């Protein structure tokens, strides 16, 4: 790979004044924290929405005090209407996929740590970086507006399938301005993500410190880099899709609307469009998005596991190559979301095979993690518990993908709770476990203080057991044919399974409440947490070579030089069983 490129002067002046320091900051670390804060707001909003939906589903006449204030039409007297359930469902999915799973593991932690881990003073384009956060914030704000407009948020789900999403108010409540705000918000989000992805790529390629070859980058840096490449291609497709959707809705075009549709007793003034076009464009983005959510967590977890095991992985390169192949394959599988969509059934075979093939790199990574644990000296703390819990969740959510990759089985399981269980576990929970691990691990670096370990472990236990209690039964419900996106089950067929749904709802309430422990821990530790030294975990990568919290220009104006790969653990170093990347000392492998 050759020597790392010497970083150029992309340095900005030290920030002065409140606005430049904390609001329109150019500092990647502040921007990372801003992304984290936005993701935190979004995840708690999304979680509360899921609470409301789960409670309504099993106790449909529950009065939610205050919900009427949010929407008089959606919750008259505080009781949720069936259509408002769909509005909340749409907002839950959109907030979680875009503003949490894309923002937290990728934009937040990537922004904060990618430049430091490669020895750079900032991102390649600090102004672009600031713009990408504030554009994301604008996207969030536009989406949130849907809650306060009279019509309410859209009811078409986070996938916004056309023509339901494209014909306007005739399609139902929330489909007038609510759906337009959704399209606008996601289009803006795409622009922000494109700016962010470009910046990550340029930074990784251009600003590496002396000696920081590509293969000396930490695995999480690799993960953010590969994710950026995926994001660049994925959001570049969703952006025009959203623009076409807005044109269909407001400019009288018919990209996604065929002729002859009668909706709400009105013959629609459109002709010639194709609903499948939206599905193709959406899922061409949508499936890579799964990997945009999970790859950063794969990288983060690998990075933290190595530190916790006190020895390197069996092969970091294999993990990196596996991530690359997953990224490559992610563009060949979007059609598995559309097996039953009416596209040529022959194409199902073409999409099924690469989908099944993704199992190979995923299995390789799992085996590498497991094999590396053999003979390790595993340190247990909140960060490593979540990292180890990630492996468990990744396997649990991954194996169910094996069912859905087969078109014949998809005939039965498509659109059932089996699918909901699958993607929540592998894309949602596993990815969030990576975020939790990252938070407990890097908090001392970001603030100079530890998070409370006792609270962290309590948070882990409730979250780990709770998520299994919520999402494993989803698979069982799928097997008996429980259809998703229903606000209640009015038929006899589902009646015997309502107690299981109640169990899930109670588990969701408890697991959600445990996240308040995390929030408390985060805020409390920020101000009152135990003071942390600069390298509390005896870690090796460059972020641990600088003060906590890092100065505005990361390395205090010095240019670090890198001598080793990032995982010199289990060796005889001058400071213990590790040698830092920027230490010129010779590595002596411990006697084995």
């Amino acid at each position: 790979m050759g020597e790392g490129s010497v970083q150029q002067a992309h340095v900005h002046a030290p920030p002065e004044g409140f606005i430049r320091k904390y609001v329109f900051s150019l500092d990647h670390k502040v921007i990372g924290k801003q992304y984290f804060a936005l993701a935190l707001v979004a995840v708690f909003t999304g979680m509360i929405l899921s609470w409301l939906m789960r409670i309504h589903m099993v106790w449909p006449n529950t009065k939610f005090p205050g919900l009427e204030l949010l929407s008089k039409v959606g919750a008259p007297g505080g009781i949720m209407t069936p259509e408002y359930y769909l509005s909340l469902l749409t907002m839950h999915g959109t907030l979680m996929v875009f503003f949490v799973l894309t923002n937290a593991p990728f934009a937040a932690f990537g922004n904060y740590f990618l430049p430091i881990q490669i020895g750079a003073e900032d991102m390649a384009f600090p102004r672009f970086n600031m713009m990408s956060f504030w554009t994301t914030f604008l996207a969030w704000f536009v989406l949130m507006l849907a809650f306060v407009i009279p019509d309410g948020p859209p009811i078409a789900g986070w996938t916004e399938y056309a023509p339901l999403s494209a014909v306007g108010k005739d399609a139902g409540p929330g489909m007038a301005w609510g759906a337009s705000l959704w399209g606008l918000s996601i289009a803006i989000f795409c622009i922000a993500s494109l700016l962010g992805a470009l910046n990550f790529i340029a930074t990784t390629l251009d600003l590496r410190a002396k000696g920081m070859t590509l293969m000396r980058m930490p695995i999480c840096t690799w993960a953010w880099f590969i994710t950026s490449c995926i994001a660049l291609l994925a959001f570049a497709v969703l952006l025009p899709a959203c623009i076409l959707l807005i044109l269909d809705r407001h400019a009288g075009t018919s990209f996604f609307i065929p002729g002859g549709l009668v909706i709400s007793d009105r013959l629609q003034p459109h002709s010639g469009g194709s609903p499948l076009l939206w599905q193709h464009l959406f899922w061409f983005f949508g499936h890579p998005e799964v990997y945009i959510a999970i790859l950063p967590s794969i990288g983060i977890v690998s990075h933290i596991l190595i530190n916790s095991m006190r020895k390197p992985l069996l092969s970091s390169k294999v993990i990196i190559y596996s991530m690359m192949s997953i990224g490559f394959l992610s563009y060949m599988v979007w059609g598995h979301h559309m097996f039953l969509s009416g596209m040529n059934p022959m194409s199902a075979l073409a999409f099924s095979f690469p989908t099944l093939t993704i199992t190979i790199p995923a299995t390789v990574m799992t085996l590498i993690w497991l094999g590396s644990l053999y003979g390790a000296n595993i340190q247990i703390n909140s960060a490593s518990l979540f990292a180890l819990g990630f492996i468990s969740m990744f396997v649990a959510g991954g194996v169910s993908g094996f069912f859905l990759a087969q078109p014949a089985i998809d005939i039965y399981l498509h659109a059932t709770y089996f699918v909901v269980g699958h993607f929540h576990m592998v894309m949602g929970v596993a990815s969030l476990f990576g975020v939790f691990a990252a938070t407990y691990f890097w908090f001392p670096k970001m603030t100079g203080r530890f998070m409370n370990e006792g609270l962290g472990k309590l948070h882990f236990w409730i979250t780990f057991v709770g998520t299994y209690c919520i999402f494993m039964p989803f698979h069982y419900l799928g097997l008996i044919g429980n259809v998703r996106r229903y606000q209640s089950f009015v038929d006899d067929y589902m009646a015997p399974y309502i107690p299981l749904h109640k169990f899930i709802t109670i588990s969701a309430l408890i697991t959600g409440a445990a996240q308040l422990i995390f929030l408390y821990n985060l805020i409390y530790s920020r101000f009152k947490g135990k003071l942390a030294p600069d390298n509390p975990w005896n870690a090796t990568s460059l972020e641990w070579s600088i003060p906590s919290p890092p100065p505005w220009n990361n390395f205090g104006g010095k240019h670090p030089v890198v001598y080793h790969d990032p995982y010199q653990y289990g060796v005889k170093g001058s400071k213990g069983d590790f040698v830092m990347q920027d230490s010129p000392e010779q590595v002596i492998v411990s006697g084995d």
Partner: protein
Amino acid sequence: MGKLFAVALVIIALVSAYPILMNKYPLPEDISTHGHQIDEQLHDTMIEAGIAFVGAQLVLAFFLFSYSGRKPGSRLKSFPGGAKVLVMFAFVIVGLEVLALGVVGQKAWATVYFTPPKADALEIQAQAEQFAFYFRYPGPDGKFGSIHPDKIDEGNQNYFGLDLANDVEARDDIVSGELVVPVNREIHMFLHGKDVGHSFYVRELRIQQDFVPGLDLSVHFTPTKIGRYEIVCTQLCGLGHYNMKAYLNVMSLTDFEKWLKDQSAQ
């Protein structure tokens, strides 16, 4: 705490597998000629995925139990054979599985989608709309009348927009809110979407197919058991989606012919 976590992992793996092993959540009864192929494939996949899930959790638990909480400075060991063995294992075992399921496993899909319907299959047209299904039989002439979206008039029960004044083929068409079919006869069903996307899902038939507005699709199946089964919409179609249902009524041939006659008389 690592050991406690290991124990928790074992319990979670076994508790998760228990309902499957005990068949606590059985698939609904299969009433189609092709469904057993899907069920068998699902069953085989369940065994493979089950072994992978439980196996991985137990290995994780075992290593956690063995290698957490060791004395500081304990001797580190490397996995025998290193990464190469594991990578080869994944490529060979999972690769074979991928090949098996990716190639051999497509048989069930082919039965549903690549085998053409028999020439004497009973033709029925299904229309999905917010939030109901309607089914149309061609009547004695064996031909469906044309659909005219501008003539749709729900108030007068003209759900398909038939031109009864001018279209002779439309006059004998039978429209029903229930899908009534004879047992052991192949059904060739045409799917027409009137407004937005919907889907036709009958669990017991092992059939699910989207309605795509602007794209007329078809499926074929043979119901093998007399009874009444729920048809549900599985494509989010708007505010009444959760309540968009109809029934599949499988009758004996005699009962079906009588039903058809009664409908024609109306």
